[in-house]
């Protein structure tokens, strides 16, 4: 469905990705794990068009999408829920959700999806007319996820959805990600919380200094001594 072939990208002279190849198949939940600065976020940014790859090719459903503008990538069914939530703090909750559906022209269906989001996230319904910046951290993360879903993506990419959340909320976010996948949306997720991510993932890639060093099923990576030592801090499963 989505394929990266030897993609390199960087900021100025700094190479953040060096020939990264990976694949996401339809219906999968794939995780990218690795330390800070390993290139996880850069991978998502290259896919969504925020960063044009310097070399390599990104294909989506057989079509080359590397170098397309974010709008074009989104129009093809790939939504990117960025790191740090990045909700629009001075827009209302409802306006934030509407921004997610900006490219959709089927107003009736958008209204139905909005109602469905309100059913799924009653807190967002209650605070519909409030500035999104007044929400709690957990509510903002739910809003960011709901906003990404409002585009009705075929593939949704989450960048560190559990970042900065209280432990109880972390579980809720991972449960939500599992629910989204179960509903038929393909998921590509970046997480520093490697343990939780690998438990959830069908497959995962381990990135180190801009390169894929290990890949496999979530369970295989969880069991891998290298991964356990380096990223799970020897924690017991």
């Amino acid at each position, binding site marked *: 469905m989505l394929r990266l072939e030897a993609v390199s990208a960087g900021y100025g002279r700094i190479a953040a990705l060096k020939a990264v190849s990976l694949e996401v198949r339809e219906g999968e939940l794939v995780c990218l794990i690795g330390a800070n600065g390993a290139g996880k976020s850069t991978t998502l940014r290259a896919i*969504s068009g925020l960063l044009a790859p310097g070399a390599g090719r990104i294909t989506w459903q057989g079509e080359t999408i590397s170098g397309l503008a974010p709008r074009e990538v989104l129009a093809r069914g790939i939504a*990117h829920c*960025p790191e740090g939530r*990045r909700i*629009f703090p*001075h*827009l209302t909750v409802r306006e934030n959700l*509407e921004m997610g559906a900006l490219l959709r022209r089927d107003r009736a269906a958008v209204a139905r999806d909005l109602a469905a989001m309100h059913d799924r996230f009653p807190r967002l319904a209650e605070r519909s007319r409030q500035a999104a910046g007044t929400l709690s951290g957990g509510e903002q993360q739910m809003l960011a996820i709901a906003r990404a879903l409002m585009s009705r993506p075929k593939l949704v990419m989450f960048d560190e959805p559990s970042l900065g959340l209280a432990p109880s909320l972390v579980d809720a976010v991972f449960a939500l990600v599992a629910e989204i996948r179960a509903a038929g949306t393909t998921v590509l997720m970046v997480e520093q919380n490697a343990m939780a991510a690998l438990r959830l993932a069908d497959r995962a890639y381990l990135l180190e200094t801009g390169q894929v060093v290990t890949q496999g099923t979530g369970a295989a990576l969880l069991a891998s001594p290298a991964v356990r030592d380096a990223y799970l801090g020897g924690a017991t499963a």
Partner: protein
Amino acid sequence: MDQTLQHLVNGTVLGGTYALLGIGLTLVFGIMRVVNFTHGELYTFGAYMAYALVALLQLDFILSLVLATVLGIGLGAAIELLLLRPMRRADIDSVMLVMIGAALVLQNAEMWAWGGVAKLIPNPFPGEPLVLGPVSVLPLRLFVLAVAAALLLGFWLLLDRTRFGVAMRATFQDPETAALMGVRIGWVNTATFALGSGLAAAAGALLGPVFIVSPTMGDLVGLKAFAIVILGGLGSLPGATIGGFALGYVEEFAGGFVSTEYRDAFGFLLIILVLALRPQGLVPAKERIG
């Protein structure tokens, strides 16, 4: 007391057009981070276009004001596409220099096209003031106030109620995330600059018939527009509106009660006071994130 009411009316008329000027400038700064030195020249441009359409082509007065505004929007779009878009990644100093250069070119072009002698724009309104109790006001000035109020309201509705307005405000807050939602940032920039320029041209076309039209009329007005925007808080739309009216009232009252000669100076004195006591402006812009 009677004089106070009169000044209040005059200050409101002046403040309305100042608010138009301020909103156009603050919007461009807020969304594009561009310090727009051509703003005062767009005001001049609007006034000259109104002159050309009304006095030379003898078109209908109101139609001429509309066309002058549309031409201002067009000139603004051209400036954005030809000068600002190629400099998207340039630093703010270079962009500032280019805008100062563009302002000089525009001003000299006005001088070259129209000569240095001031022009009058005829208007169809009766020259007799309307007298309402202690207050008398020229119908033309009432018309100016009504149009300025309608433009302010229309602009607010555009930003608050339309999809385009929501996208514009989202871009203001976080351009990168707005791009991820499918907003064409380049297009929002062009539209913002064009609309801001259109508001300046509208203000010029409205005030041209009230005062006189000359190639340097935009100098002081451009400076005042900056003062309004700084007064209200850079990048803040409510701030620019309040700042515009505040400047209008201060000029009018200081001109009326203290000294007509120094009315402009009082406006700038107000800016100095606000900056000394409340440097973030009256209504600070909502901070950017990301």
